[in-house]
């Protein structure tokens, strides 16, 4: 990994929520990196802490949560140490974020043009007219027809897919180096999902932006991302180039995840399921979080957090990873 090519490197990040019921370790020692122009897929079930991961990078974790440890190196600087004011300058300009639910993301009582223009003018001192034009171009870029008419409309007048496109347009307005997309297509139906995916692919290819695509759906990232990180219960369990990981997963969880994708199962046979349920992020035990559902677990998994094994440009956090380049799926 050429360090100078990295746009983001997350090292040992920990984000904890200090609630009345106990400490929720939503992000529990996570490390990964994203290169320039690369798409990273961050995959995990709900409750794995992936959204919190995204917020942590931008410094948007709401109390009672906060980042308690680790480094976030963005373009060479550790932004975990940044003050709120410094983060404000980064947000929307160098790093942008797209959220899951487009209905709630846009302010329902403000017009689209207001919301887009303010995103531009908060970082650059240009006049309204120019900002307006840039916003129009932005809308056209995401494939929204007749942008001028759309600009003076309100969010509730758009369909879900359109709203998400607007959110994407806003994220791209200032040509950021990195976009974090938190399940942007989960709330949309499949056809729209495909369109948006296609759009994003095009944009990334053409502009050289890096993208972290957070999702629970393996099939979505399969065609889009170059690298994949699999998260489970606040930890990364496997990291690596996507084709390798998907074809020959090393971690039992990844293995199970891939097996569970319905299209992979043969007709007539029972659908594969990973047994057990996701553990709560409260009161996390010291050992491996996946052991209660793992077929390969033993005493060691109970007591110590699994160390990393590096093999063929991949990282696996497991005491019993599938050897020889992973299991056949």
């Amino acid at each position, binding site marked *: 990994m050429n360090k100078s090519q990295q746009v983001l490197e997350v090292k040992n990040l920990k984000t904890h929520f200090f609630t009345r019921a106990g400490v929720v370790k939503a992000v529990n020692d996570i490390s990964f990196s994203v290169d320039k122009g690369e798409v990273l897929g961050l995959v995990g079930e709900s409750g794995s802490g992936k959204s919190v991961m995204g917020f942590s990078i931008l410094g948007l974790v709401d109390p009672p949560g906060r980042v308690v440890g680790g480094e976030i190196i963005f373009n060479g600087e550790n932004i975990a140490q940044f003050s709120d004011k410094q983060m404000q*300058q980064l947000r929307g300009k160098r790093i942008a974020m797209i959220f899951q639910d487009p209905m709630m*993301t846009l302010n329902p009582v403000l017009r689209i043009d207001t919301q887009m223009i303010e995103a531009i003018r908060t970082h650059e001192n240009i006049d309204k007219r120019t900002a307006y034009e840039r916003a129009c171009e932005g809308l056209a870029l995401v494939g929204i027809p007749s942008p001028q008419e759309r600009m003076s409309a*309100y969010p509730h*007048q758009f*369909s879900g897919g359109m709203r998400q496109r607007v959110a994407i347009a806003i994220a791209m307005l200032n040509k950021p180096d990195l976009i974090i997309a938190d399940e942007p297509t989960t709330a949309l139906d499949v056809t729209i999902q495909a369109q948006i995916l296609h759009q994003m692919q095009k944009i990334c290819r053409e502009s050289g932006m890096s993208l972290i695509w957070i999702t629970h759906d393996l099939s979505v990232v399969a065609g889009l991302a170059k690298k994949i990180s699999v998260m489970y219960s606040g930890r990364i369990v496997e990291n690596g180039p996507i084709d390798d990981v998907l074809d020959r997963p090393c971690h039992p969880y990844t293995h199970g995840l891939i097996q569970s994708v319905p299209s992979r199962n043969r007709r007539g046979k029972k659908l594969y399921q990973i047994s057990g349920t996701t553990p709560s992020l409260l009161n996390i035990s010291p050992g491996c979080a996946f052991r209660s559902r793992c077929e390969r677990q033993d005493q060691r998994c109970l007591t110590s957090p699994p160390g990393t094994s590096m093999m063929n440009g991949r990282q696996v956090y497991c005491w019993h990873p599938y050897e020889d380049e992973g299991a056949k799926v």
Partner: protein
Amino acid sequence: MTEFIIRRLTQSIGVLLIMSILVFVGVFAIGDPVEVLINPDATQAEVEQMTEDLGLDKPVWEQYFIFLTNVVKGNLGNSFVFNEPALKLILSHAPATLELAFISMLFAIIIGVPLGMYAGFKPDSLVSKSIMGGSIFGFSLPPFWVALMIIFVFSVKLGWLPASGRGETVDLFGIPVSFLTWDGLTHLILPAFSLGLLRLSLMIRLARAGTYENLMMDYVKFARAKGLSDMRVIMGHILKNIMIPIVTISGLELGNTIAFAVITETIYAWPGMGKLVIDAIGVLDRPVIVAYLMLVVVMFIFINFVVDLLYSVLDPRVRLGDLKS
């Protein structure tokens, strides 16, 4: 938009009609209406004349119709005490009450909303906690007692402000108002404060609750993710969202304020409708009571109407339908 106005107008007229029926029933059908509208010392001949005038020998629904036409003509009988048309009496006293009510509400909103927003934005700061503590306190003080206490402190003991009466008035569009004169202002301060304290507390709590709730919404997170400054997020995004419930409740509270003004006017000898009506209830001057009721209901319906209009202006989801792409 026009459709909306027409719909609301018809609704308002409907409510007015219902109210008129209620008043009619309350005043005419129960008990002897002649007794209601005529001086208790009237002679027998006058009573008979009145009975005929009122058409009490006619069927009930016709009586109601006569009542209604009378109301529309503005004829609500004469006050027993002043021997003047009741409606005219009430109307002449209305500006004083309205002035008091408006100034109090304005005071409550202008001071209350910013304080509440601050408290919602930084809920854990000492300032916010004192604001909230103060608001519960303000909320728990009976208005009449507050009025008495501040009169005691500021007027009796300190002698800074006058304890009663309305100040000098100037004519604004033909209506006498007192807040434009210095003398008028000093007379306004104590009554407006005691009337507005409860509303102030309410506004603080509303603004705080609204701000607090909105802060947790996704659109705020998204706005911050765009890099907007906190000030911009509060003023540009959150403010507009919380104005909606604030405006709606302000309308209701304006009505409440007009009602509570009755107390303030009595204590401060403020020459408004409220004092008039309390005196009227005391001596059973029913035409005045009826006139007050009808006027207040009309005002109130008008306020509701304006609030609805404002609501649709503020919330585009109500105003515009869905133009799905």
